[in-house]
């Protein structure tokens, strides 16, 4: 069942129940008032009649005879009054017998001497009031409450008509209003379906300011979060695929060379010179595979490591250690490495940070030409490695920390790189909650900032 039908039906039931209860209460009050009025009238009438009888009797002077009473009452044209003396009826136009009247259980009125009782005769409910007149006569007044019942029925009927007359249009109106206010829900549901089907950029209209509008806004927030998450997942998936493709390429190239040289050595008659070259290539390519495997292991190990044991590391000591490590390779290329130690310290793992710094210096040395200088210095607690070498094109800067990314592939390969150095460095830096910032201009050099937070 649709929500709008449900709400309308519940509302109809509630309105009907409430109206019925209030109608019932009103009707009961009405009935009680009408009966009380009839009761009071009956009391008044019996008292009036007895008073009139006494007046009449005293005007006669002598003792009052039964026939005088009969005639008086008859002259009044009162068909609902009964007069009884000593159990004998003096005046009675009704079907009631004196015994019935005299023996009925009576309850007193507030007025002294007056009494009343109810009885049902021939299916009609009668209210009978009673008093004594002139000491010897029992006067009864009979009130037929049938009219009262008819009146009450009419009231009940009218009330029911009003009840339905109001409830039905009210429910119809409610149905229309509910349907209108639920319309955004329908749109929202369609939006949700579209998103489920893959249209992650779908957004709901946030028209009104009420709960449905709020829901639409929340829905949009959720959709945005989903879209971002999906995009991030897709990107990471693509990165993973790229990584696997690059990795298999890096693996296949040395393998092809090694197996190719091995086959050649077995099958081909080679000159001594070629045989030597083949063996040399097998050695260098195996070493390359070994390096690749080691670096991959290290990357994996760093990837799974949650946190590091940090100690206080002096930036100056770090610089000097890196300078010492990289000096031999730099000297071979005719590059000078200078360190300008300051007094800064950071929290970190000395060995890992040393690896990072060595990698940065190594890259700087590789980028530099003969006679150039690689500078290591610190400023504001950050470490800088600056060279005046060939520089990195702006378009490549954002990719250089990706695994297997090489700006100049053939040069990197020839110098034995697998393209994992900066990826490793970036991973270590991430574990230190630090940041690597690259500034570079082609032909003017590169400056890498190791920024500690």
């Amino acid at each position: 069942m649709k929500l709008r039908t449900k709400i309308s039906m519940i509302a109809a039931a509630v309105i009907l129940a409430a109206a019925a209860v209030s109608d019932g209460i009103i009707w009961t009050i009405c009935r009680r008032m009408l009966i009380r009025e009839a009761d009071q009238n009956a009391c008044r009438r019996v008292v009036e009649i007895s008073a009139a009888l006494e007046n009449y009797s005293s005007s006669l002077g002598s003792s009052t005879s039964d026939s005088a009473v009969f005639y008086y009452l008859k002259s009044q044209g009162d068909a609902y009054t009964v007069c009884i003396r000593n159990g004998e009826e003096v005046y009675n136009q009704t079907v009631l017998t004196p015994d019935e009247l005299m023996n009925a259980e009576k309850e007193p009125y507030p007025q002294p001497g007056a009494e009343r009782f109810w009885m049902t005769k021939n299916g009609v409910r009668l209210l009978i009031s009673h008093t004594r007149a002139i000491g010897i006569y029992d006067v009864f007044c009979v009130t037929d409450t049938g009219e009262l019942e008819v009146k009450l029925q009419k009231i009940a009927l009218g009330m029911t008509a009003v009840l339905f007359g109001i409830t039905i249009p009210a429910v119809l109106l409610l149905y229309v209003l509910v349907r209108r206010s639920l319309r955004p829900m329908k749109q929202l549901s369609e939006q949700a379906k579209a998103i489920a089907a893959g249209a992650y950029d779908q957004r709901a209209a946030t028209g009104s300011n009420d709960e449905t509008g709020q829901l639409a806004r929340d829905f949009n927030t959720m959709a945005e979060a989903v879209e971002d998450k999906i995009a991030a997942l897709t990107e990471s998936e693509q990165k993973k695929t790229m990584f696997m493709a690059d990795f298999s390429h890096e693996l296949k190239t040395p393998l092809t060379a090694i197996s190719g040289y091995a086959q050649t050595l077995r099958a081909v008659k080679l000159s001594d010179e070629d045989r030597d070259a083949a063996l040399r290539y097998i050695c260098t390519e195996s070493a390359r595979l070994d390096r690749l495997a080691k670096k991959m292991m290290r990357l994996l190990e760093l990837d799974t490591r949650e946190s590091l044991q940090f100690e206080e590391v002096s930036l100056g000591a770090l610089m000097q250690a890196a300078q010492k490590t990289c000096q031999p390779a730099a000297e071979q290329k005719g590059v000078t490495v200078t360190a300008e130690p300051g007094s800064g310290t950071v929290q970190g793992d000395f060995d890992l940070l040393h690896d990072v710094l060595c990698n940065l210096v190594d890259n700087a040395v590789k980028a530099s030409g003969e006679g150039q200088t690689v500078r290591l210095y610190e400023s504001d607690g950050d470490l800088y490695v600056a060279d005046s070498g060939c520089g990195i094109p702006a378009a490549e800067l954002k990719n250089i920390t990706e695994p297997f990314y090489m700006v100049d592939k053939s040069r990197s390969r020839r110098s034995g790189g697998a393209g994992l150095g900066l990826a490793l460095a970036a991973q270590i830096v991430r574990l230190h909650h630090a940041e690597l910032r690259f500034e570079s201009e082609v032909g003017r050099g590169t400056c890498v900032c190791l920024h500690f937070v």
Partner: protein
Amino acid sequence: MSKRILIAEDDEAIAALIGMNLRAAGMEPVIFHDGEAAAQSLPADHRYDLALLDVMMPKKDGFALFADIRPYGIPVIFLTAKDDLASKITGLQSGAEDYIVKPFEVLELLVRMEKVLSRNQQQDDTLHVCGLEVRLSEHRVLRGNAEIPLKPMEFDLLVVLAKHRNTAISREDLLSLVWGVNYLGETRTVDVHIGQLRKKLGLQKQIVTVPKIGYRLEE
């Protein structure tokens, strides 16, 4: 005249490996380490019988270099580590003769190259090896002016050995290259024919048995 082969391969080890094998097979390899250098050399010198191009190269990749090579009508074989279907289709649809995925076997490379070479131009009709003159279309072998009679299979075996001179070929490979892939014979057959060749041609020293591999015709 030996075949000139253009090799564009950024990995030094692999380029040298191919070069070494081609030289052993009597070809003349010319090696470039990036696409750009190869493309620039073309206008001045494009007398190549075949080009082997690596797809992933710095500066200019193999597909781009192929566009430069096409006008000279040089047949091309792509040589790559990219073994996804899309790359293969791109490579072959662009008009390349073949697409070889790394890691490859050297013999496979040589056989494929030979197929491409024979498809694309007049193979030299005559092979000269160890003082013999092998006339391919006439199916005749001459030493000096004297003809040496050979049975058809012996002749085919000699041609395969001569084409891959200096390279050892396994008995299985010889079976499939000479008798065809569907031949269900034993490797003994090869030994018998080799024996016949040695005897008829007097090549006891030149046709070398390489232990655990097969036979090699040395020159």
